[in-house]
């Protein structure tokens, strides 16, 4: 390529890629710099590790890390766990399969806040679940199900919202596996589980990794489900970050933001490695 071609290419990439790099690069840079005391909005800017060391001593911060990791990993695992059998079932079209697929993917069209509201309606103190349980005589009176301390509500919401996305990725990958390969495995005596373990799972590693990582990153950074349906005595990292920002504590918010990004990268790498190891029957390569 001549310098003219490079110049033309640079000019073409500038409004799209250029803006993305400048904008996201600035956001990440400001977050990292502020976590070390720089770019102060309300005082002296000076390099310092103080914000990190103070944050490590905070119980709320350490609990938020544990809680966000729990929600992230559990949501990713549950979404893929429910999506996998459905993807295998919907691998080949049959009468009604398109309708099923559409119904299963419907939550993708529902905004997260609306999903949270719908869920809260169902499990509220006088909601449907309480009414049914009392009607069946299982419970004597209504139970408080909203904002449960184990974040079951948040996990249900995350799975409801993310399972269709995992399904979308997995169906594409599982459908691409040729019938000949599966028939050959069956002819060699492999039962349904063996076919899944030895053929389908290793051939859909990439889609599983993508699904796990995407759901994990989204759930790790969850704010709205946590605020509406999550436990009141725990905070997610996003919630903690918004809390610090609300009080103008930008450096503390930056420490949480950098933690969130770091955990996102580390957790994604771990999920990708572990899923590859398990689905390939104990081999990484």
């Amino acid at each position, binding site marked *: *390529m001549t310098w003219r*071609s490079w110049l033309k*290419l640079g*000019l*073409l*990439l*500038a*409004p*799209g*890629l250029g*803006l*993305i*790099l400048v*904008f*996201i690069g600035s*956001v*990440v840079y*400001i*977050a990292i710099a*502020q976590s070390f005391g720089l*770019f102060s*909005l309300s005082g002296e800017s000076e390099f310092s590790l103080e914000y990190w060391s103070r944050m490590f001593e905070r119980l709320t911060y350490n609990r938020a890390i544990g809680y966000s990791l729990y929600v992230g990993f559990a949501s990713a695992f549950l979404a893929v766990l429910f999506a996998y059998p459905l993807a295998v*079932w919907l691998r080949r079209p*049959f009468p009604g399969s398109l309708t*099923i697929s559409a*119904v*299963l993917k*419907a*939550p993708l*069209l*529902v*905004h*997260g*806040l*609306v999903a949270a*509201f*719908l*869920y809260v*309606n*169902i499990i509220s103190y*006088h909601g*449907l679940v309480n009414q049914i349980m009392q009607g069946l005589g299982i419970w004597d009176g*209504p139970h408080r199900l909203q904002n449960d301390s184990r974040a079951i509500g948040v996990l249900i919401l995350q799975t409801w919202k993310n399972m269709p996305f995992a399904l979308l990725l997995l169906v594409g990958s599982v459908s691409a596996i040729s019938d000949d390969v599966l028939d050959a495995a069956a002819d060699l005596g492999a039962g349904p589980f063996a076919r899944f373990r030895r053929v389908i799972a290793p051939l859909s590693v990439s889609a599983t990794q993508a699904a796990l990582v995407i759901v994990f*990153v989204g759930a*790790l*950074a969850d*704010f*709205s489900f946590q*605020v*509406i349906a999550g436990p009141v005595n725990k905070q997610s990292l*996003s919630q903690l*970050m*918004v809390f610090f*920002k609300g009080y103008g504590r*930008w450096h503390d*918010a930056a420490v949480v*933001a950098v933690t*969130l*990004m770091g955990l*996102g990268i580390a957790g994604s790498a771990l999920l990708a490695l572990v899923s590859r190891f398990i689905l390939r029957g104990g081999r990484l390569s």
Partner: protein
Amino acid sequence: MTRLNLNKILLWALFGLCVIWLVIPFTIAILWSLVDPSQPWTPDHLLPPSMSFYRWGYLWAHSSLKIAMFNSYMLAPSVAIVTLTLAMPTAYALGRINFPGKEVVKLLVLLPLVVPGFVTAIFFTAILFQLGLNAWRFGAILFAHSILFLPYAIRIMSVSFETVRQDHIDAARDLGASTFERWKVAYIPALKPGIMATLLIVFIYSIEEFAIAFIVGSPNFTTIPTLLFTNLGANFIRPNAAVISLILVVPNVILMLFLERLLRSANPALSSGKG
């Protein structure tokens, strides 16, 4: 048990799940939005004792719903047009030019989707404060949304550019068409479904976006999701939240279904009427 029978059983099981999954939650939301305040819906009633559109009218007249809808429906089309305009040159480069490092560029374009939304929102606000631009919130959110949704626009449009047929461009050139005319007859017909899909997907994502609208817009600039969030938190009144939820979700579902049809029909050979 044959595969057909198994499918039938699973189909019915899934039908039951679908009722729990979608029908019941939305029916309850619709019923709550119709509860008349003269007779509240108490646990001893299966259905609201009195139903009316009072809440819809009340919210329209006495809350910031009108402002939120105006803001959202002004913002979303503006974001869609700005994003498409910004995405076109990069999409052209990715779709029509072969250059070293193209795969890296394709990956870098996805960066806005990797950084958590609230991190982007909070530290974008920090940048706005430092630049002294935090007063014009509409512009700030418009700018942030445009960049946030660039990955979708670039991806869709680069695929559209890839599918523009070289023989159509060459034929137009051989017949003496100028650059403008070549775009008109060879590029635009093939790009049309991609352009429509981009405009629609960015419009929907912008209407639904919460983190940036909440952090950058607070407290003065309200959109439909931020209004819903307020109504689900400190100001929780169930019938009001039901009305806003339905206002947020119903138009978007219809638009999404339309989008799916558009993406399916995004066959350049068909749309250009040739090939």
